């Protein structure tokens, strides 16, 4: 319980703090996203098919930004599978586990993109 508490406080603070930074990543403002890695390249396509419309480029749009907060992979996956709030859930029949892993790998690569 103690750990849960500390973790929650940690996440909460991180989330709050991170709302300040820009969520823009990739070209033209940042370095191109490195999609040399096959898994990342496949993850990008998954992201484009299912997420891009509400979180364009990982920025806010209809939904909130996801690039500018240090969301752990597990939390991204939880959100995708359960769709907390207004976001629709995406079950395994739609995005298989492996594709979801790749998509998370893509999102993490995108998040790390450096400013030009």
């Amino acid at each position: 319980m103690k750990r849960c508490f500390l973790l929650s406080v940690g996440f909460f603070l991180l989330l709050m703090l991170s709302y300040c930074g820009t969520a823009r990543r990739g070209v033209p403002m940042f370095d191109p996203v490195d999609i040399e890695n096959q898994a990342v390249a496949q993850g990008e396509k998954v992201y484009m098919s299912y997420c891009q419309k509400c979180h364009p480029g990982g920025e806010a749009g209809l939904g909130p930004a996801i690039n500018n907060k240090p969301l752990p992979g597990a939390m991204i996956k939880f959100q995708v599978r359960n769709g907390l709030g207004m976001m629709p859930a995406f079950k395994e029949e739609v995005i298989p586990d492996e594709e979801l892993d790749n998509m998370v790998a893509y999102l993490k690569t995108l998040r790390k993109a450096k400013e030009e």
Partner: protein
Amino acid sequence: MKTSLRLLPLLLLFVLCGCYRILPSNGGGQGSIRTEARPINPDDIALPAGYSAEAVATGLTFPTAVAFDEQGRLHVLEAGYSYGEVFLEPKLLRVEPGGSLTTVATGIKNGPWTGVTFHNGNFYVAEGGEMLGGKILRISPDGNITSLIEDLPTMGDHHTNGPVIGADGMLYFSLGTATNSGVVGPDNYDYGWLERYPDFHDIPCQDIVLVGRNYTSNLPPEPKSEEHVTGAYSPYGAATTPGQVIEGRIPCSGAVLRMLPEGGAPPELVAWGFRNPFGLAFSPAGQLYVSDNGYDVRGSRPVWGTGDYLWEVEQGQWYGWPDYSGGLAFNGDRFAPPGEEPPQPILAQHPNKPPKPVATLGVHSSSNGLDFSRSDAFGFKGQVFVAQFGDLAPGVGKVLAPVGYKVLRVDVESGVVTEFAANEGKIVAPASKLKNGGFERPISVKFSPDGESLYVVDFGIMETGEGEDINPVVKTGVIWKITKTKPSL
């Protein structure tokens, strides 16, 4: 301590999932918008390394498209109509070197003129038809206007768009739907056209069978007790019954059609089931692509969370409007607006299972004009460039941040979408919101005949208030020219 301990994970959940419902809409036309001036500064537009932008014409009123005549001279359309019910005279203008403008032709108040192409010595223009119905016009270089086809059923929410010429020599154009999702309602009254055309509604391209679902509404000036029951593909106040057949005819709503450029023969159906197929472009391989604006959260049958789409157009196919979005059926709660019922199908049978889109674009991004890069000198050869006008929130629905306001490029093989040009800043938004000198609302893109420059038509400032309150600002339109200044490595 104990209670706060238990509350924290809850609080966390709240941060994760409570935002959308609670946060106010923050569209690109909302909030503090600078409407009194439009400073121009190309440095405020972020471009890939080695590209630069300049403004080649400014002070335009609602520009929508450009074309080049056989001497390569730049021409631009002024729409003559904007959402917000502003009716002016549409114009075809020549942009002289130095940026001064010469009027080639002036149309009647039946805009918006949405698109132009130059072919065999003449300009071909799509006249939107908000007042009198859509037309395809031929305009000679000395300004003579001939109407090739008239009375296209586009006096509603969306207009007659295009045209482009195919490798087969035919002229391709498109018609947007009358309504958001098939049912005439109070939103159409707010837009203005329902008062002008109380019987206007969507028209299918083929016979359709209705589920017979009806929607109850009343129009703003009436007392709440005054209720009207309206079915799909029917005039406001006309109810429908299960199994009712609505006869299809051509021209119809939400369709791509083609005709001979000299006119004379009735148009043929290419494909239908689109909502507002605004941008049409042929790929270098001769394949037709269209951009389509997705549903809004408005009217009697609001639909939430649907993207704009890029489609490869296949002959004879139905693309899903009004019962699918991006190939996904309305069969669950996925498309339900916050706290409302999800939209239910209105067609008892669907003409075919809609294809999968080539690319998925931002919800409410208003992804409009398209053009393919055909040149190594510019780069990204074979990719399609897309102009995003940007959201009209909150009238179209709530967004947490401005959506669109940029030029994208799409790899049509993989469907991967990459930003090509957008304003500098922490977020992408129109210059009037960011208070800089970059893009307002890119509405179309066109490569120069040599393929070396990309022209971006920027409609200008458009402020949005509650509901359908839209305030477009005249004389704020710009044409930008983007060129590659350094060869790629």
